[in-house]
């Protein structure tokens, strides 16, 4: 069953409703056994990295996440759920994150005229626009399949490695094009 990992980092309603719009039932859980047994996993997240990491530790999910991301189970990280897959973030005075993917997460520079958070519809690979809401970004890396430019920075907005797919943008809030990505994820066999 399609399983959404709940670690008290933001609101899961939109993700559930987007899959419901595709006619797919979802289960929301923080139970490590259920997560290990899932067919497909969604790892959303909005909010601060440090509290997200502490929630994951308290729920005993750090090892679970390391296991499922190397098991071949199709795995979709969204927003903060993408960022904390990497090694480290500048957020909250510097926070070590899961280290499942190598790379760094940084804060957008203060550039006159470029507001933080980066909110709105921005292009991925200079083509279609998806909906973004974030203040930190994943640095360019070898797994970046999609890149986006903001505040003079080009960052990784979609990464893929093995069974892991992760987007900085919110497919669940990106209209028809976002639903298409979620639908593709449902039939993805990495």
């Amino acid at each position, binding site marked *: 069953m399609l399983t959404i990992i709940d670690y008290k980092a*933001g609101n899961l309603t939109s993700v559930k409703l987007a899959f419901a719009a595709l006619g797919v039932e979802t289960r929301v859980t923080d139970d490590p056994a259920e997560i290990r047994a899932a067919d497909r996993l969604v790892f959303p997240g*909005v909010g601060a990295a440090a509290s997200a990491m502490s929630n994951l530790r308290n729920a005993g999910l750090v090892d679970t996440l390391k296991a499922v991301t190397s098991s071949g189970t199709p795995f979709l990280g969204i927003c903060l759920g993408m960022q904390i897959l990497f090694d480290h973030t500048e957020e909250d005075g510097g926070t070590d994150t899961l280290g499942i993917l190598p790379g760094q997460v940084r804060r957008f520079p203060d550039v006159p005229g470029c507001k933080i958070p980066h909110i709105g519809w921005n292009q991925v690979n200079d083509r279609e626009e998806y909906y973004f809401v974030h203040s930190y970004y994943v640095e360019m890396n070898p797994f970046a399949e999609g890149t986006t430019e903001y505040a003079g920075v080009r960052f990784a907005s979609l990464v893929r490695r093995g069974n892991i797919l992760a987007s900085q943008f919110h497919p669940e*809030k*990106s209209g028809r094009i976002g639903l298409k990505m979620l639908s593709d994820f449902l039939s993805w066999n990495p």
Partner: protein
Amino acid sequence: MLTKRIIPCLDVIRGRVTKGVRFQHNVDLGDPVEMAIGYSNGGADELVFYDITASAEHRPIDIGMVEAVARSVRIPFAVGGGISSLADMERVVLAGAEKVSVNSLAVRDPGIIREGSKAFGAQCIVLGMDPVGTDDPSFPSGYEVTVRGFRERTGLDAVEWAKRAVDLGAGEIVVNSVDADGTRNGFELRLTRLIAEAVGVPVVASGGAGTPRHVADAFTEGRADAAIVAGMIHTGEWTIGEIKSFLSDAGIPVRRTW
């Protein structure tokens, strides 16, 4: 490139979308969910719903409507009006709204911005403000913030209040000009620009949009990141597609496929 957002505003009274001028002469425009679907399919980048009489009538926000919208559209939307506590914010967010807009509540209790921002993230907390032009020198920006449907002045300078709200954790500011609201004579560009240049978070221009040129002006002269449109599209006079074509021709980046 980050595109400029066009945000239809739906003023809701007892489950129906209405439109008035300066909160008066309201006419029925339709069902909020049907209109949300129509605008989403028509290229709206985001939606905002104001339950405009909830506060005055001491009613809680219509959560059933928020849930129905969340089930029906896959674009972000904000909800305002009738929010009187952190618990109200949570109900709106859990019902599927991306953002909560606070206005009178934040003036009465600025701490709610910090609490909301801490609980749901700055991106979730929108400060709505209704400034009115004034010659009174005690307001350095020339604009005083009003509340309660423009009926009450607050003694707050618009720019000072915007900065303070951002310090407290607001992630976006909707600047709704009292003088321009409902006139369809164009946004109050000086006010929009004053706020947009004073804060580091996105600013949404509101009040006065009547033509695509007005919307373009909000982005160029007004320095806004997004613009709210209401009457000009509710009447059917303009579509969002037409506004976006105009903006695109004027060299303003907009989302063109939806």
